[in-house]
């Protein structure tokens, strides 16, 4: 039986056989109520009021679906809401969207709720996403005013050349999830401009144009530099508009520098 690596510290394998309709390869049992140590470990993730009952997370071999079972404890009826199930999915290292949810008392009269999830992304996209996250993690504490920026660009370049347009889309999704610091996002946008890969140029351009609307000035600045590095005159109208509307004085100056570079050379 397959055992997830994430079980070691906070979960343990809860082997159940013959669960209906799903070809299982592993289970993670969240003992929130019965194990104070685990309850403490997850206390940063779940509110005390949410740490009730037990949850069983199961997944199939190709990671195409997952199920969260909620078990009542001590005769209580507790139905976890969707946000709790989604956080369990995040704990388990996957990003899922809910597919269906049913309430049942039929499974050995143990489980109250069965929620079936499908991944937001395919297994191959998940692999790309994990590679991207590894790159971001590796460079998250680096100072980019050195040649580190060059190495970071090379790392993202390798990921994008190996995986093409899906890699740009996945990087965009990671940026939107607000799990990355503004500085690393800004450097990512600069790197996306530096990469010289015609196959993904349009997607990178679109991502950069979209990012000049970000509420963070650091991220907008990274997008402006990225567009300058991409060296595509199509960005001029949007940059001129941004120059007219942006309220951060030094950023307006930086936009002007980018416009001058695109106009002059």
């Amino acid at each position, binding site marked *: 039986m397959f055992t997830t690596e994430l079980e070691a510290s906070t979960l343990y394998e809860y082997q159940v056989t013959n669960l209906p309709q799903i070809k299982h390869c592993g289970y993670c049992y969240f003992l929130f109520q019965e194990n104070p140590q685990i309850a403490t470990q997850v206390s940063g993730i779940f509110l005390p009021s949410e740490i009730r009952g037990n949850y069983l997370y199961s997944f199939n071999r190709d990671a195409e679906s997952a199920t969260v079972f909620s078990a009542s404890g001590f005769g209580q009826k507790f139905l976890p809401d969707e946000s709790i199930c989604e956080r369990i999915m995040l704990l388990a290292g996957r990003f899922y969207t809910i597919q269906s949810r049913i309430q049942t008392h039929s499974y050995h009269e143990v489980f109250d709720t069965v929620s079936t999830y499908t991944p937001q992304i395919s297994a191959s996209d998940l692999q790309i996403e994990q590679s991207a996250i590894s790159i971001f993690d590796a460079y998250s504490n680096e100072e980019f005013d050195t040649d580190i920026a060059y190495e970071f660009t090379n790392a993202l370049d390798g990921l994008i050349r190996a995986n093409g347009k899906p890699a740009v889309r996945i990087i965009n999704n990671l940026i939107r999830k607000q799990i990355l610091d503004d500085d690393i996002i800004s450097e990512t946008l600069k790197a996306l401009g530096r990469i010289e890969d015609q196959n993904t140029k349009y997607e990178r351009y679109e991502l950069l144009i979209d990012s000049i609307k970000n509420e963070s000035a650091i991220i907008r600045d990274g997008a402006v530099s990225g567009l300058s590095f991409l060296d595509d005159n199509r960005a001029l109208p949007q940059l001129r508009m941004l120059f007219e509307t942006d309220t*951060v004085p030094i950023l307006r100056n930086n936009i002007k520098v980018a416009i001058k570079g695109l106009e002059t050379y």
Partner: protein
Amino acid sequence: MKHINEMPYFLRAIYSNINWERTQFPSWLKEGELPSCIIRDLRADNNALSLWEISDDKSNLLDIVAAFVSLRKDIKYDFDYALLSANYLDELSFTHSKKPAKTAYRDMNHYHRNVSNLSINNVVYFAHLLSRHGEFDRMGWKDIEARLKEAYTRGQLDLKKMKPELKQQLGISE
């Protein structure tokens, strides 16, 4: 004694001029305080800050920036900097001395200065000086690229000091 607008400037390379923008300071800062993140721009190796002397008409500014970038791997790099009028350093008796740099742009190396014997208090004071009186700006990568190519054409670059990646991007072959 030179008139204030005839004084040269000192250039300090910084990571991002956005971090020095007062409108972007965190709201929890008290009046007159600076965010601690900017200290990364004032790293003092051997208790000294590295600065570059810029002429009062800023005519050597682009060359100095090109000298700085001549040691990097990537030409696609926007160069953020702050300029501080030299009179502020003179007034505060900061000890600054010539210390030739080792960039590939030979003719610019003698513009390098070290402000030495700095305590942490000095560095913090310098940060306040820079924040209050500095001119923050950016040099675009295409201007830097063009100037490096010109310097190469004039034979002013020490190619042995340049990294292969940068030479390749500039189309320089030895």
